[in-house]
């Protein structure tokens, strides 16, 4: 590490290398944006305002603090990206309304006092999430 390999050479390699790979990443992001419409169910999102409203219900009750959604979140409670397919709309609504179970020693889900509209919105959001093309993840219906 001496002779021609000076600190300023090292610095230039750092700047050049970083810039090059950042540009490649931006190109991949550009390609990503072009391909997303075939995968992300945006037509559904545009035609049904309940989905965006449901996403807000999901966010403002901090569901991600216990559950995963497409595998991201906390690992304390079941995956919900595919819960619409696993349980169906009526079970989901009934389950949320029935919480907490108060079963001794079991993990407890709080009661969020959602209105019927909020429950419908949330279900619309889960239906939308379950139809996103996730390259066949999760491996099975259990999430």
């Amino acid at each position, binding site marked *: 590490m001496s002779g021609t390999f000076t600190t300023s050479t090292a610095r230039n390699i750092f700047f050049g290398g*970083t810039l090059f790979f950042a540009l490649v990443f931006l190109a991949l992001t550009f390609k990503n944006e072009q391909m997303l419409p075939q995968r992300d169910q945006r037509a559904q999102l545009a035609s049904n305002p309940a989905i965006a409203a449901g996403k807000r219900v999901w966010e403002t009750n901090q569901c991600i*603090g*216990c559950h995963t959604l497409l595998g991201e979140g906390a690992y304390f409670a079941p995956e919900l990206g595919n819960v619409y397919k696993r349980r169906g709309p009526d079970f989901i609504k009934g389950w949320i309304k029935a919480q907490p179970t108060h079963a001794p020693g079991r993990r407890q889900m709080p009661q969020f006092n959602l209105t019927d509209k909020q429950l419908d919105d949330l279900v619309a959001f889960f239906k939308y999430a379950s139809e996103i093309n996730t390259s066949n993840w999760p491996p099975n219906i259990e999430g």
Partner: protein
Amino acid sequence: MQYKSQAVAKYYFVGAIGLFVAQILFGLVMGLQYVVGDFLFPAIPFNVARMVHTNALIVWLLMGFMGSAYYLVPEETETELYSPKLAIAMFWIFLVTAALTVLGYLFVPYAGLAQMTGNNLLPTMGREFLEQPLITKIGIVVVALAFLFNISMTMLKGRKTAISLVLLIGLWGLAIFFLFSFYNPDNLVKDKYFWWWTVHLWVEGVWELILGAILAFVLIKVTGVDREVIEKWLYMIITLTLITGIIGTGHHYYWIGTPEYWQWWGSIFSALEPIPFFAMTLFAFNMVNRRRREHPNKAATLWALGTGVMAFLGAGVWGFLHTLAPVNFYTHGTQITAAHAHMSFYGAYVMVVLTMISYAMPIMRGRAANSNRAQVMEMWSFWLMTVSMVFITLFLTAAGILQVWLQRVAVTPMSFMDTQAQLTLFYWMREVSGVVFLIGLVVYIWSFFCNSGESAKA
């Protein structure tokens, strides 16, 4: 201490350690809730404890980085800080914002907090790690900008070194990528895509620059090795970090609705991400072996070497374990992820902040190093925390492997909750390890208060 204004770092370090304690206590609550599900319910539901656990970590690491910068930059640039008063004011703003946010999490239902703080105006809440109310997020931006202004102005009037330049690039990157936390499209795939521009480009990008710069600074001080050698190492390490880590973001884009080419790009580039961490381990050991002086602060040297090893194990090895797309298909969103997250955050970022505190705190308290007794205690805390974190990681990994098997690989897959019931033993052992970690933390804090007797003079 060479420059009077370096003393502002003390505020940040003390604040950081205080939040560290909160983080660990809430971690223990969550660990217990994994096995005694209704523990503290409904007073502190799991999601609330988790917000406090992760947000306290983020804020105390940011405080640690800021404190490190305030200590390091005057010495590197050979000039007093541009405005020590601004630094102290920003500390209090940051601390009060963090404290109010935590109180909000604990005492107001989250939906109510969202309403009170104007989440309707610009919905940003309710996404993992970015749960903070809008006003807190704005507060973070204000504090970060004032901090960057202060540090940049100091650098402009002083000597320019590679270490301070790398640190500054890392800190600016931190602030810039945080801005993606304000972007929350209704489209879930795009939401997740750009969420990672904050989360991944922080921890596997610009934060590693900050980590490298702090480590390089401490290694120069404790080993006396030529600055030129250390700076070349630093540039080499961060070059490897960013050329692997930027496109390595792709390892989060396998299963969230993004195109399948990410499985190739993400797998290949993130498989290379351990290399810069391995280089960092070599760097730390090489420099200590070639040391030209025996610095009286043995504890700081131990933390620096520990950072090299544990960052490589936690971020490098445990990251590689589940980064290839065909493996990640089964491990995505399981306890394997939790295992990796624990050891990598501890090994890379917790340890580097503690390295800096270990080096700088005695000097700010008027001595080159702590008394022998205090150092022995600090080294005990190093081993207690580090070994218990290794065990936390191993138990979570075991739980994760079993979880993947029962829930995703078996011929008749079990449901999530039935699977969890099978993992109880590992979760108990993780909780016991967590208690040992807390004991280590208590010993660590205690070591600050047993400096009576002899201590090397500054």
